């Protein structure tokens, strides 16, 4: 993995990988959307079950993005790999988008099913905290001018904030919550019917691949921007 931490090698490898990743993401999203919008109504939730095909993948992707951001931050802080800080910083806005989507779609599901747009239960509150950590991370990175100091401060915040990930995951186990418990990654296998499981898995795959496509493009953008800054300095100085 560290072999590709070299920006030049990363640019070459990602240029070859991106078209395939784009195709896979588009295929998974189109198939997932088709299955999601044609899934039969649930006997309890009715058509609102279709919101789950957006809400759950968005929430998964948001948490995965944070996990990757924290991992890149650890590598950046310990090994000082040139791409690790860039990877962490570029993942944050994408993670924030998926977190906001998870919250918005959850709220749109909660209103007809629970009778409330929002409840302060463990899962919802810890997930809102994830959005606030993402926003705080982005704000901190923009507030510090020196790139090295900004990267270090952001890395520490990302690592400390990672404590929230197990809290989100186990919130439905530790506390009595209105939010339902695990229904896919649970002992004994998934608790939902295949007709709902397939669109969910396809959408989750599509969201994950889309995140990786956008993340790679953002990393490439940052590498190009840094190269442009160096070129500009050389030409003016």
């Amino acid at each position, binding site marked *: 993995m560290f072999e590709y931490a070299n920006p030049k090698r990363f640019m070459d490898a990602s240029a070859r990988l991106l078209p395939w990743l784009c195709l896979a993401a588009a295929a998974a999203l189109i198939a997932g959307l088709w299955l999601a919008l044609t899934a039969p109504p649930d006997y309890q939730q009715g*058509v609102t079950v279709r919101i789950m095909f957006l809400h759950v993948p968005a929430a998964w992707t948001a948490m995965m993005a944070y996990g990757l951001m924290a991992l890149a931050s650890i590598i950046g802080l310990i090994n000082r790999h040139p791409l690790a800080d860039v990877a962490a910083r570029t993942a944050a806005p994408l993670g924030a988008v998926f977190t906001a989507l998870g919250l918005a779609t959850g709220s749109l599901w909660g209103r007809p099913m629970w009778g409330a747009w929002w409840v302060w239960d463990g899962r919802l509150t810890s997930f809102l905290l994830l959005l606030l950590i993402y926003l705080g991370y982005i704000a901190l990175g923009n507030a510090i001018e020196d790139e090295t100091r900004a990267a270090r401060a952001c890395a520490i915040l990302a690592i400390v904030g990672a404590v929230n990930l197990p809290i989100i995951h186990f919130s439905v186990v530790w506390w009595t919550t209105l939010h339902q418990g695990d229904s896919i990654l649970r002992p004994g296998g998934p608790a939902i019917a295949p007709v709902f499981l397939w669109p969910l898995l396809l959408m989750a795959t599509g969201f994950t691949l889309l995140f990786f496509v956008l993340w790679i493009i953002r990393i490439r*953008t940052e590498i190009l921007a840094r190269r442009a800054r160096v070129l500009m300095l050389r030409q003016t100085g």
Partner: protein
Amino acid sequence: MSGPFALYVWVAYGISLCALALTVVVTLTAYHKAKRAIKDLETKP
């Protein structure tokens, strides 16, 4: 799609697809801008 709660579903899909499309557009615009900046700097005498 019909039923008493169909509007919530349409709004959820509308918001999600618009947000993701906007994210894609913003990401690609920034990427092409950076690529053009590099090209301009490299061709500058």
